[in-house]
């Protein structure tokens, strides 16, 4: 009897734990938060907006959008140096315009730009404050501008659609209209640009971006990406008006006025319209690549001995041009034969200190560290490590080379002024082309460029070198596909747009760009 009771008790115990075990299997998120608003949940719009800003850091590095915009032109080459920088051929392919849909940097650019669009959508569609929504709409327009410029078509998600749905796709023309309408809708809701910090969305930045889109509208709305491009006079006048609306000023100090935009404390420059903020030793993008992508291993600061400029591009600069060679006062971190710190580095490189034979550097093969203007796609022989003139666009932050204080300039007043000059030259209403060209040249210590389209194109190449605009300019001026030193052939017109990354075609609404 007792035994039966115990057995019964045991059975009940088992059944009890059976029922404890039965569960509804709802998934829990324990180390994050649900981002699903379909069930009436909310998301943290402030945090998401912050994250959308941090997406701008992807522009800091040497790859991605930056490489697609500079290395695909005559301004920059990424030579393979023996065992260094082959990287599956990605850099050579960009420079020679032979990329394919599996290109890693193309994929990286696509993912970076559009995942940030998504963050902006989250803020806009999920109850962000009026101010947050305005900023998010500006950022979204910026990311979409880059998508339209690089890829033509642009995928989007209608508000309220499920994440499981394949995104829909705008044509290049539709996406351009969307960007313009968005910017015009919010430009007056954005705050004024703050002194000493242009890293937040502001009225000036929206005006700049509107000017940029109107200037390129002839390209973006062309039925054939290869043109012909028609630049409507009304659009050009809009460019002039938006530039005129800017509150920025140009620091006309010879030399240092230009370089104040690229120093570690460049947030103080009144010329910067919009930037990606970096904090010394703290959070930031891969800003160190601005010196390390070029510098040799044995230089100070040491680098990865990669990218260079091409002789033809370098020869656009007058020897006196302070934009190409400049010794930042009180700053002798990098030493080239002229004792210059920044700009293009050519010839023998030296250890820190005085320029003396005893301080001449050697490369890792014990050849003199002399950067030569001659460079090939695959370097070899005695100049294996030294071929190619290097560029130092930003002034390295000596206090923290790896995680510097320099903000990344995304929009600059010089660019706006040159856009205005170009727009007027292309038929827009306005004046001051000669003054603009003269001011920029005087500051650089050279004579002004001719007030023609060719003159403006050349001046853009000098003033804005390695700032990420060369591809956009070259296409607008019809020079992108042309034969050049390391690409001795005219490229197929399909290369005016990058291919849609192969991985993206899992979205059945996307079709590959023509020709790929």
């Amino acid at each position, binding site marked *: 009897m007792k035994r039966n009771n115990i057995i019964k008790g045991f059975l009940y115990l088992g059944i009890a734990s059976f029922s404890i075990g039965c569960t509804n299997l709802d998934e829990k998120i324990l180390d994050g938060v649900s981002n699903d608003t379909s069930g009436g949940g909310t998301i943290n719009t402030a945090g998401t907006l912050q994250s959308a*800003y941090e997406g701008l850091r992807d522009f800091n590095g040497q790859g991605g959008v930056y490489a697609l915009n500079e290395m695909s032109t005559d301004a920059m080459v990424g030579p393979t140096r023996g065992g260094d920088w082959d990287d599956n*051929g990605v850099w050579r392919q960009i420079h020679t315009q032979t990329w394919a849909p599996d290109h890693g940097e193309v994929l990286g650019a696509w993912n970076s730009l559009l995942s940030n669009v998504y963050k902006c959508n989250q803020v806009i569609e999920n109850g962000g404050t009026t101010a947050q929504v305005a900023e998010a709409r500006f950022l979204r327009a910026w990311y979409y501008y880059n998508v339209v410029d690089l890829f033509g078509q642009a995928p989007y998600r209608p508000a309220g659609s499920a*994440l499981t749905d394949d995104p829909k796709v705008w044509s290049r023309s539709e996406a351009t209209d969307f960007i313009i309408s968005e910017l015009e809708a919010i430009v007056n809701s954005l705050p004024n640009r703050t002194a000493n910090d242009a890293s937040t969305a502001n009225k000036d930045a929206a005006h700049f971006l509107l000017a940029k889109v109107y200037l390129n509208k002839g390209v973006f709305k062309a039925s054939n990406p290869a043109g012909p491009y028609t630049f409507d006079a009304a659009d050009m006048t809009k460019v002039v008006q938006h530039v005129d609306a800017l509150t920025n000023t140009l620091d006309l100090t010879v030399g240092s006025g230009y370089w104040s935009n690229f120093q570690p404390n460049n947030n103080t420059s009144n010329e910067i319209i919009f930037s990606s903020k970096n904090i010394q030793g703290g959070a930031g993008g891969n800003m160190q690549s601005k010196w390390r992508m070029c510098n040799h291993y044995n230089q100070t600061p040491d680098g990865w001995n990669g990218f260079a400029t091409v002789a033809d591009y370098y020869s656009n600069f007058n020897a006196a041009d302070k934009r190409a060679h400049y010794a930042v006062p009180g700053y002798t971190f990098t030493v080239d034969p002229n004792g210059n710190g920044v700009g293009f580095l050519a010839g023998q490189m030296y250890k820190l200190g005085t320029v003396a034979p005893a301080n001449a550097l050697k490369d890792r093969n014990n050849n003199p560290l002399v950067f030569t203007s001659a460079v090939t796609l695959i370097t070899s022989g005695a100049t294996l490590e030294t071929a190619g003139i290097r560029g130092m666009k930003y002034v390295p932050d000596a206090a923290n080379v790896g995680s510097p204080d320099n903000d990344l300039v995304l929009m600059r007043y010089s660019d706006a002024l040159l856009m205005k000059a170009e727009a007027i030259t292309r038929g827009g209403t306005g004046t001051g082309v000669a003054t603009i060209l003269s001011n920029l040249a005087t500051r650089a210590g050279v004579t002004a460029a001719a007030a023609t389209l060719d003159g403006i194109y050349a001046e853009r190449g000098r003033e804005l070198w390695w700032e990420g605009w060369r591809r956009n300019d070259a296409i607008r001026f019809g020079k992108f596909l042309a034969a050049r030193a390391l690409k001795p052939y005219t490229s197929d017109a399909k290369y005016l747009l990058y291919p849609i990354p192969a991985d993206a075609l899992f979205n059945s609404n996307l079709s590959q760009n023509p020709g790929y």
Partner: protein
Amino acid sequence: MVLVTILCTSLTYSQDVSGTVSDASGPLPGASVLVKGTTKGAQTDFDGKFTIKNVGSNAVLVFSYIGLKTQEVNVAGRSNVNVTLKEDSAELKEVVVIGYGSVKKKDATGAVDQLSAKSFDNVGAPSPADLLRGKVSGVQVTSASGEPGAGASIRIRGNSSIRSGNGPLIVVDGVPLDGGDVSSGSDIGLGASSARNPLNFINQNDIESMSILKDASSTAIYGSRGANGVIVITTKKSKSKEPQLTYSNSFTFSSLASNLKLMSSAEFVANGGANNGGTGYKWEDAILRNAFSMNHDVAFTKSTENSSTRLSIGASNTEGIVNKTGLDKYTMAFNNSNDFFGGALKVDTKVNYSSLRDQAALISDNAGYIGNLIGAAMYWNPTNKLYNTNGTYNVISNTYINPVQLANAYTDYTNTNKLLASVKSTLKLNDNLNYQLLVGVETSTSSRKFQLDPTINIQNVAQASSGSTTKFGQANISNIQKFNKTFEHTLNYNKTFNDNFVMDALAGYSYYQYNASGNDMSAKGFDANQMNLIDNIEGGLQTEFRASSWKNQVELQSFFGRVNATLYKKFLVTATMRADGSTKLGKNNKYGTFPSVGLGYKVFEDKAGLVNSLKLRANYGITGNQEFAVNSAVARASYGNNGSLNVDTNANPDLKWETTTSSGVGVDFGLLNNRLTGTVDYFQRDTQDLIFPVPSAATQPGPPSPRFVNLPGNLINKGLEVSANYKIIDSEKLTWDVAANASFLSNKMENFAGFIQAGAVDGQGLTGAYVQVVTNNQPIYSYYMYEWRGYDSTGASIYADAAGNDASLGLAAKKLIGKQGLPKMNLGFSTNVTYKNFDAAVSFYGAFGHYLYNNTANAYFFKGAFLGGRNVPASVATSAQAQGDPNSPSTKYLEKGDFLRMGNLTVGYTFSGATLEKMKIKSARFFVNGQNLLLFTNYSGFDPEVNTNKAKNGVPSAGIDYLSYPRSKAIALGLNVTF
């Protein structure tokens, strides 16, 4: 013989015979003693004693006991006959452990192999995975490297998933393990290293048997986790009646097995390398050592009529052949079984506790130009001195690292404590029905601490700026906690209705909960004099502190059932069904159902003649795989620095299991008096609904993380498995067995639209490079790269272009080259000989038909590296390659991976006689074991048995070798004593 026996018997007179029957562990109660040719016999009593009256003086007594070898002894006029029965592995195999029970091998319908402790020939294996290698057909075990305790991939019948999650489910004493990493990986800035093998916690001396369930009819009872096969590990319990103490030890001496030759200082200079004055540098000497390891195990067992207990304690100290590496392991296993209420209730308690201390060197999977420890030791110019005359390290530059300085500057310890405990209560409800409740707990805590001393300067590694000065040193601490619960309720019904219908049935419910959490912290920029960075992490720069933490939970609940029936003693039917639900799945697909059926037909059984037994088997079933990250199905975001909210996952409410439909046929046979036994199996597995993270590019604008979906496509695995066992000689004094197994496997993607990159290649100039793909009509992990054809007159590499013509690198075209990283054939072979007190065993295993990608050679062994001052093999230094010829991934670095290895060679001697009895020793055996003494391969790297983790975007790789921990060869001496 029979005639002689009859003759002899006819000439005899009768007497009473008594004696004691024992086995290796002592007196054996319940053994059967039979007078041959009669029905006369007896069973031994509780003390192993028996008495049979009126036995002829020349009668032959047949002693038998389940699991032990039957012995015949001629009475020869004696009145007292004492016999010690030996274990018989073949007999042991008769009963095989399957999921939720066991079955007689002859009645099994599924493809199940069981390996008992007897056939473990690996001495002191850190992980049970090592014991399986080469032993079971259809099972491939590949270590990531030669490091003690390195992760290993176990593949049963191939790879059925295109991404991770190809490993089998491991069940220890009824508790399914969660399978994830128990400890953390590491990354100090010179590449990441993988976590340790999560199975290291089991002491091999505590394992009674391992059952490998290969086909769907045996794995479908594990439903959504059965698709990759199941390994059921059963730990030892007490078999002896009287108290028994076993002590065993082994002492192992190991050294480098590989013969990878780099240039000596003389050769380096002779071939034009810079002479920096030093001589005698060898990379092996700089970072390797002759290692010494030892193992000690003590086990105590005792049983009474209704209780049995086993307690064991193990301690092992395994030194790796790379300096400052090794694995210290302390284990405790307790096993108690008690009957209550006259056998109506049985309670089995098992507790397994382990404490592991793992020391690692800086050997990462994806080092760059600067290298990891192996890379730095290999590229070091052999004419460089390691030390300056004043005793300090000779520092070349911050990208050309002194290997000894690197070895000494890096410290990396992982401490892991793990408890696996279960209580199983079996209640006999009536003669046919049992209820069983299993409650299991698996809990572990692991802490990995690693640091790079501030004394070393490596570019972009472990340094931080403080004002205008740079400070060095980095410390990381990563903790992982796991707590898993298992509840299983099962009802067993067992009935023999009549001779023609015997049935047993099982029904059950399970609930599992897997909890994991962890945290990581790091700091950089320490005072130059600080040495104990990981223990005083506050010393880092305040701005360089980083911390993160994570936590997740997975719950599963399942309903399952199985019916086994034997009809007319010849037909066997097994039908199983499991319904599994999991929190991880999309909310529209929370449950999946996994059915299977297995059929068997015994054509012959115990028949005399050439063919003694023959059984045909067929099976069909559906199993699942749910190895994807938790929170994959839901929209998830998490907070980053300064309040930013980052979107992590893309919701997919439809996400469901990967389903594998398997079918197979098999034959079990016994020939020549059952001396030749074997099995042949053919199978086909078709995996659909492939779980794959769709690249985020396709879901843009969307979260930057991929979205897990079930891709359309079929991953087909087909294979043939053959295993055979032949007792060539089986006499009292001399036995000789041979066992061999072979598996042939083909693998192909079908109806698949993707072209998925896999097999990342790393090193200088190789950023973003990959050499394998998963695409339609090809085996997974097929090689995709340039075809290399030699050098032109300038020393530039010639490749093939898309049309197949010679081309330079700029015009070359990558293509599928029709070679795969997965072996097409695996072989295992072993033989055992015993002669009187001597025993000897040797085992071989090998893999064939696959190619290895030598990433080490790709990244480090090319002319430009040599001319840049780095050491390479002499053939590279003297090659026609130009200095500037880029080292693009190509077939130049692809090599055949075929190998045959003598895994183990063991010679033992079992002591017997009066001395032992005097010392109260029941048995003692001394052995010498050699591991990895012979290897046949043409592969030029360290070792062809390698699988560096070169996953790309979550898709794993196969057969890529990159600066991995070299394999050792070893000699071990050991002793087993039973008191």
